[in-house]
């Protein structure tokens, strides 16, 4: 409980000389700005540098693969290995059986090749490749419609992976389980090339731009149902 005397004293203090008061305010204002800046910078650092590192896990492919070498050797480009089946479905990442056609014995002298033959070819185990461009199960995507019917080049969506000499690390979003290539490397979602990201908007933009049929071939439903069947 404050007494009457205490209150009087307080009043006296607040009515101290103006000069002193203003210097005190300046100092405290500086601090406030400093703390604001510290907070700002720290959160920017967290948001732009630490957060992406935490969000994505990095995994290396089980063995490395040189697309460039293979492209030189095959005759039909990407489709030599990533082919369409007779029923029009797309084979995706090659199965071991295809690799074995040439790699039954160790080819060349790289260590990677020796490991591949020993670990997978001889043991007849499929290589658990991590697929950068894997879309979630809720999306229906037909390669044949895009590549054969629309005549879109592989590069348009997949970039110049065919020229790569090794496989980059696979980054997986810890929350969604998607490959980072779906959202794109850029944290703000900007893209320079069409293959930089492949989210729903990217599909929609292209469909709009190319003026393709706005309804599903199978169900005739439009909007969402073109891809989400």
């Amino acid at each position: 409980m404050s007494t009457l005397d205490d209150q009087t004293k307080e009043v006296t203090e607040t009515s101290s000389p103006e000069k002193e008061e203003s210097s005190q305010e300046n100092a405290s204002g500086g601090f406030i700005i400093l703390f604001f800046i510290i907070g700002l910078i720290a959160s920017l650092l967290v948001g732009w540098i630490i957060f992406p590192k935490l969000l994505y896990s990095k995994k290396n492919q089980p063995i490395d693969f040189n697309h460039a070498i293979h492209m030189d050797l095959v005759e039909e480009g990407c489709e030599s290995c990533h082919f369409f089946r007779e029923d029009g479905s797309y084979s995706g990442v090659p199965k071991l059986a295809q690799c074995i056609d040439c790699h039954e014995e160790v080819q060349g002298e790289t260590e990677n090749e020796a490991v591949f033959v020993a670990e997978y070819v001889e043991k007849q185990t499929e290589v658990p490749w991590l697929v950068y461009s894997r879309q979630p199960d809720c999306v229906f995507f037909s390669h044949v419609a895009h590549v054969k019917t629309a005549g879109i080049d592989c590069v348009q969506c997949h970039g110049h992976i065919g020229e790569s000499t090794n496989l980059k690390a696979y980054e997986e979003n810890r929350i969604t389980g998607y490959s980072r290539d779906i959202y794109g490397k850029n944290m703000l979602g900007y893209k320079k090339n069409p293959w930089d990201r492949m989210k729903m908007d990217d599909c929609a933009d292209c469909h709009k731009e190319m003026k393709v049929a706005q309804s599903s071939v199978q169900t005739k439903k439009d909007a969402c149902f073109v891809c989400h069947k």
Partner: protein
Amino acid sequence: MKIDRRSFLSFVIGGAAGTALSPLPWKLTDDSAIWTQAWPWTPVPTDGEASYVNSICSLCPGGCGITARKIDNRVVKIEGMKGHPVNDGGICVLGLSGTQLLYGPMRVKAPLKKVNGRFRQISWDAAIAEISNKLGELRSKGESNKFACISGTDRGTVSELLSRFLTVYGSANFTRTPSIQDSYELTLHLMQGVQGITGFDVENADFVLSFGSGIIDGWGSPVRMFKANSSWKNAGGKVVQIEPRLSNTAAKSDKWIPINPGTEGALALGLANVIIKESIYNTSFVNNYSAGFDKWKRHILDGYSPEIVTKVTGIDKAVIVSLARDFAGSKKPLAICGRGQGRTPGSLKEFMAVHALNALVGNINKKGGVWNLPEPDYINWTELKMDSVASTGIQKGRVDGAGIEKYLHARYLLNRLPEIINSADVSPIEVLFVSESNPGYTMPDTSSVKKAFEKIPFVVSFSSYMDETAQMADFILPNHIYLERYEDVPVATGFQKPIIGLSKPVVDPQFNTKYTGDVIIHLAKSMGGFIADAFPWENYEACLKETLGDRWDKLVENGYWIEPEFTAPGWKEGFQTASTRFEFTSDDINSLSRYAPVKPEGDKASFDLVLIPYDSMRLAGGFIGDPPFVIKTVEDTVLKGKDILVEINPATAGKLGLSEGRYAKLTTPKGSAKVKVHLFDGIMPGIVAMPSGLGHTAYDKFLAGKGININQLIGPVEDSSSGHDAAWGINAKLVKA
């Protein structure tokens, strides 16, 4: 520097501003939204190359063609085979769920031996050696007749191998699980003098009179019957369903006539009475191609007037008369019997009464009628050479009494076996093989069946699944399941043309399983002598290929072989009785006891209600139990949680003081069970209806412990004419629990 509240707030505001200017909140919001749309725990089917394999389903005797869709090497869907003569693209819910039987947890994954009450894995060689030693021991004691086998069928190469093995070993005790096939075979044998299969030209019938047969509840070949039912609707055909309960079949029929349960045979004879009295029968057939009609006519006219039949069946006299007129007045009437799915043989005299109705309207071996199909004749193996032990063993005859004395005409009487074993001091069966059947679940009075099994010292199960019988066995030698094996499927129940199907491996065997045929061949070889000589094949597949001969290539390509031009033998050639005519009565028939409704077990004083089982397409009540997907389709008026619901009429419920969903105790002379009550106007008062196919104690957690097995509450009733089980229900009591 003084850090005060203001500085802190300013830090927080700076942090908030920085965070807002960073991707963190926006990306997190987006990602959490995506997370909710593709839950990480939702299974995602793997992508791969799609392929299709045509095969035959053998989950029931329906013989449907199936097409398995595979992604890479995994079966992902089973569909009906388009163009198959039996089911043409259609499939039932059980057939559809076959993938769960392939990959599900109920599979027996390796040969097992029971040691101190628990199953241990054993190698195939060790298991076969032990069984071979046991059989050798029994044979050397001169007790080869103490070896028996229960098989789901007696047709096809696997069961032929089993019965051949028993014969050459020296035992006549090969037996088939009971079904209406037993009664229909006897009916054909006695009335037409043929040993054959009944086929029903249902697609061409225009008036179907069903004495309790579940036309769309799994009778015959289920998918075919569904299609036939639809075709009747489109073509203006009529279906009259006679049964005490408004089953799905009754609900979809043109007319449902509730009847006192068990009196269907009396109604058939009552209808015959009207047809004869009004002379609306097929005179051409009756006068020229039948024998014993006059005697039978007198018996029918005297004993089955509508007035008498009304009292027995509870059906109004006018209804009986008009039904008889409608039936006889139709162009292609067809009467069928065998209750529900036809798993109980039933009363022989009832089958003969219904068959006589068909004969009266002259639709035996005619378009839209009942056809006689020859037994499949493609298995022509070399004559057996038997040693003296085998001959002596065979001469000792069958334990179940089939084929001798009062049951002269019966071929197999499995229903009598438990009682015979239980009443003997020492089990007359010492070694028992069980193949493609689950008697521990499907036979009535399960507790006595269990007791009998416990008394048999050495039981070998060939089941692919951990079913009730396999659990009681001393050895389980798991067969490949139907999606992993080659096997001939010789008939499709009730189909009117000879057809052979070939099951093909859709995928490689998933576990350490082995063809039952291979086990038999190995066993025979290890036993040596004439037994080994009787099995000259290297393995089962070689045996099958050789047996099917010229048909093999076509079977592999199409999945089935059919005689498309087959027509039933006409009236002139069709009957091989002594009189070469269809016999309404004969000395053989007269030697059987007269028709009388089969009485249910239990006295009326203690048990005032009658319990009847009912079948449903959603509940597999045979050798195969419901896979998880199928059990999910069962309505909660049948199974709620783990509780089974029995149906009673609201009037009955009122008397008993029971209301919807209340627990009650259902007691029969065979046992009691806690059930829930479902009030249903579609059941006659005084009757309790219980679904069959529930109450498994084996299989997996998805099926075991759900509901009650009605076979625990119902016992067999021996048909005095055939010896087969004729039970259609049992007297029961229902009290509040």
